[in-house]
């Protein structure tokens, strides 16, 4: 069963921006406690919040409330503009002629379902009691202060900060349309429903699976950038900035993002992520890779090439995995590819294996070529082979790329780089054969679907759902779904599995 999950900080920022109607900047969230990643995504954490973090949220809510009350869209019902300054003579603002409309519109959107009658009543009494206190403190505009209090309380409500729509009882049966709408909005937009989806939720039209599917496709097209960043960016690491401000790394990060965007937007299959036949680079990165670049052209260009652009030949992956000792590079590269692209889980190390690893540090002859040093890992007698039997074929095939992600045939010590290890039943001697083996495997396609399904379900697939991802990725009709298609079908499937769709 799904836990009562927290909204990620990104989701909160998006929701605030979308409800207020103008972008709310990162600077307001700097001091927020990060939400831990689960299955590689920060949208499914159930981590508890502590007092300091809540205090920080109160501080932000105070800032956001000002923006809410400044939003023409949210306050259009009120007879005069809302400001903390004393109102000019005119119609006095009250709950009835202003507060109710603001709270209903604003809190409903943030709660992802219409405000319930008893919630309205509670906000009214919160507003009015706070208004009285403000008057007692001789503040110039007590109504504004009272409404601010109610808005701040709604901004931090557990109905906003948690995801009750994912758990039984969180939404009422009559709110089913809103539940579907919210699932779609969280998945494609990392936020709340837009106007069109909200209307459909209210009209009951989301009871029709065809309309849900249409909306899923519309949302993906309309909010592709958010989906790309929050799904793709977390899956493949280009959302968070790990460039350390290094200009080349920034160019590399952009390459990873831009190739992903191209594959998604053009309706290409996820296999193309491994061998796209092109890459997208700026001049700096083109020079680094030795690719042709039209100096009179656009600052970022799509270049046709078979040598670059694939996930395993992108500098952002190759360079980030190359920090630390010689030894670590193939291990990091191997683990990344296995866990991100093949969804393999490495067995957990037991104490004896950890001890074996420590001892091995002293036994290995560091003058040997790296591939021979690592052979030690795969001695059948030890327990190391369980992991290294998978890690080393990937890591050693990728040794053709140096720390900078540049091609080489000979390592730093003058040894020729050769590997004849097998992965997925193929000899993977170099990055090309490795990428081809992964690309052609059902395991990779299934893994992509598993990532999308996990992101949609807000949990890892259960044991009895293992075949679901495979069915999405490798349909019985022999077709090869595009990344777009997989995103849509994974979301629709998740509604079914969570028993939300009819």
């Amino acid at each position, binding site marked *: 069963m799904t*836990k*009562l*999950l927290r909204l990620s900080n990104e989701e909160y920022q998006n929701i605030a921006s979308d409800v207020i109607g103008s972008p709310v900047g990162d600077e307001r969230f700097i*001091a927020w406690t*990060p939400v*831990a*990643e*689960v299955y590689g995504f920060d949208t*499914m*954490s*159930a*981590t*508890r*919040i*502590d*007092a*300091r973090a*809540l*205090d920080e949220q*109160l501080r932000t809510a105070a800032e956001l409330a000002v923006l809410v009350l400044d939003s023409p869209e949210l306050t259009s019902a009120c007879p005069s503009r809302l400001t903390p300054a004393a109102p000019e003579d005119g119609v006095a603002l009250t709950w009835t002629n202003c507060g109710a409309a603001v709270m209903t519109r604003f809190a409903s959107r943030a709660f992802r379902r219409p405000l319930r009658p*008893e919630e309205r009543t509670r906000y009214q009494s*919160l507003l009015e*009691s*706070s208004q009285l*206190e403000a008057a007692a*403190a*001789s*503040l110039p505009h007590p109504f504004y*202060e009272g409404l*601010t*209090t109610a808005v*701040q*309380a709604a901004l931090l*409500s*557990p*109905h906003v900060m*948690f995801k*009750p729509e994912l*758990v*039984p*009882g*969180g939404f009422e049966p009559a709110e089913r349309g809103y539940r579907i709408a919210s699932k779609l909005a969280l998945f494609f937009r990392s936020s709340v429903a837009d106007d069109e989806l909200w209307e459909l939720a209210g009209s009951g039209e989301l009871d029709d699976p065809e309309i849900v599917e249409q909306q899923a496709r519309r949302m993906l097209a309309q909010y592709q950038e958010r989906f790309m960043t929050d799904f793709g960016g977390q899956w493949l*690491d280009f959302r*968070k900035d790990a460039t350390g401000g290094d200009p080349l790394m920034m160019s590399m990060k952009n390459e990873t993002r831009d190739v992903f965007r191209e594959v998604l937007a053009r309706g290409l299959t996820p296999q193309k992520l491994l061998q796209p036949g092109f890459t997208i680079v700026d001049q700096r990165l083109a020079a680094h890779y030795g690719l042709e670049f039209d100096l009179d052209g656009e600052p970022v260009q799509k270049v046709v090439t078979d040598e670059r652009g694939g996930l395993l030949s992108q500098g952002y992956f190759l360079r980030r*995995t190359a*920090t*630390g*000792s010689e030894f670590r590079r193939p291990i*990091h590269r191997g*683990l*990344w590819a296995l*866990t991100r692209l093949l969804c393999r889980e490495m067995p*957990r*190390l*037991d*104490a*004896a294996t*950890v001890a074996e690893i420590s001892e091995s*540090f002293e036994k290995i002859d560091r003058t040997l070529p790296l591939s021979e040093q690592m052979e030690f890992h795969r001695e059948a007698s030890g327990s190391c082979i369980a992991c290294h039997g998978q890690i080393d074929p990937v890591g050693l095939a990728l040794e053709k790329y140096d720390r900078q992600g540049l091609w080489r045939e000979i390592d730093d010590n003058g040894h020729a780089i050769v590997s004849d290890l097998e992965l997925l039943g193929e000899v993977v001697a170099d990055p090309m054969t490795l990428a081809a083996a992964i690309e052609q495997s059902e395991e990779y396609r299934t893994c992509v679907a598993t990532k999308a399904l996990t992101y949609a379900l807000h949990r*890892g697939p259960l044991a009895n759902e293992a075949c679901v991802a495979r069915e999405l990725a490798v349909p019985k009709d022999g077709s090869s779904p595009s990344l777009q298609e997989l995103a849509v079908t994974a979301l629709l499937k998740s509604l079914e599995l969570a028993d939300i769709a009819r």
Partner: protein
Amino acid sequence: MKFNPERRHILRWMGLQLALPVLASVVPTDARAAPATRKRFIAVYFPNGSYMPQGADGDWNFQEALAPLDSYRQNTLLLRGLRNGFGGIDPHWQNCAGFLSCHPIQLGDPGVARCAKSLDQHIADAYPSPLRSLEIGGLYYHQHQLNDHPGYSHDYLNRIAWQSADQYRSPVADPARLFEQLFTTQDEQAAAHLQFIRSRKMSILDHLHGDATRLAQRLPQSYRPVLDSYMQTVRELELQIATPTVGCADMPPDPSGDFSSPNTNYVQRFRLMHQMTALAMRCGLTNVATFMYGPSVSDDINFAEEIGPGVGHHGCAHHGGTQSNVDRLKAITQVQVGLLADLLARLKELELLQETLVLYGSDMSDGNIHHTKNLPILLCGEGSDLKFGQELGSAGDGRPLSDLYMDVLSLMGISSLSSFGSGECLSTGQSLRLAV
């Protein structure tokens, strides 16, 4: 955040007489401490160990790593041979989260970081105060770049204070924020407005509590614990805000300065927060604090201002025998030991050293190979009750760190625990005999 020094006063203090009886009444009697000489506790964590090859004593002595502490030699008890590690779990995650809890992280449930209540929080239970405990550090939230350890929450790398198995307490990084939390600014003209803002906060928290209660009623029973802990958090914050504010000390430190990056004013940042923590203790605002001089790994902290540009902390801890890295690691260790000396100076200045126990240590001895035996651990304070100025134990002892924690609890008059930690790190029941 800008502060105007002329307008700044320390507040709070007198309201405590109102707040404390309430606190005392919610603490179960068996958790409260018996009279003890030590009634305050500070734990300081530093990541990545020291230069202690293969877990040998290495540089961890007063001639080398501890040289900056030379003038506090008589206030320092050097403990050797303690261990705190669980086989099979990456020590960066495990040993940071487990530094004060001696409990394995629980990997089975990736949705929630779980460890166990930490030593500082047991002490906070027994010594209630308006601010349950202060957590300081969090210069940045370290994330494993490749995140290739499934189930290992990054929270484990960034938190040492665990209020309960599934609730950590996150550290504050910004001196200005800490200042605000401790020493609210006072502005005569805006007093009524400030009072209104405080009252608004209370109303909002009360409303959130009501929302959570109502939500809990709608959901199946199994969701209660999540919402209960949320409500506890709300209550804790209410209690903090409710504490009325009246001045208690002279001019507090000026918290302004650029602290936007973990590498900007590293030393200055901690000096300020040492000073504020000591003042907060002097004022009775809190009795317990934990410092993280960096998160586990800490590779984003490079100490460029202190020792010149170069690789990050983690990078030189994995020195691989390279002399330049070894030298850099030694220099970093000295910067941090120097911070400890500053903390002790602040406590001494306010005559707190006799009543306070300061624990200083790392979750690794040799960071190069992630060795978790013979940890570098110090206990600092003032008084003739403990063997300050001495060295106890030896590298090969292999006593669990939890044995020390049982002794610490006992020194603080807390006898409600029959053991500390679990599994390989369970206390043995044998005292380390720290008393004179």
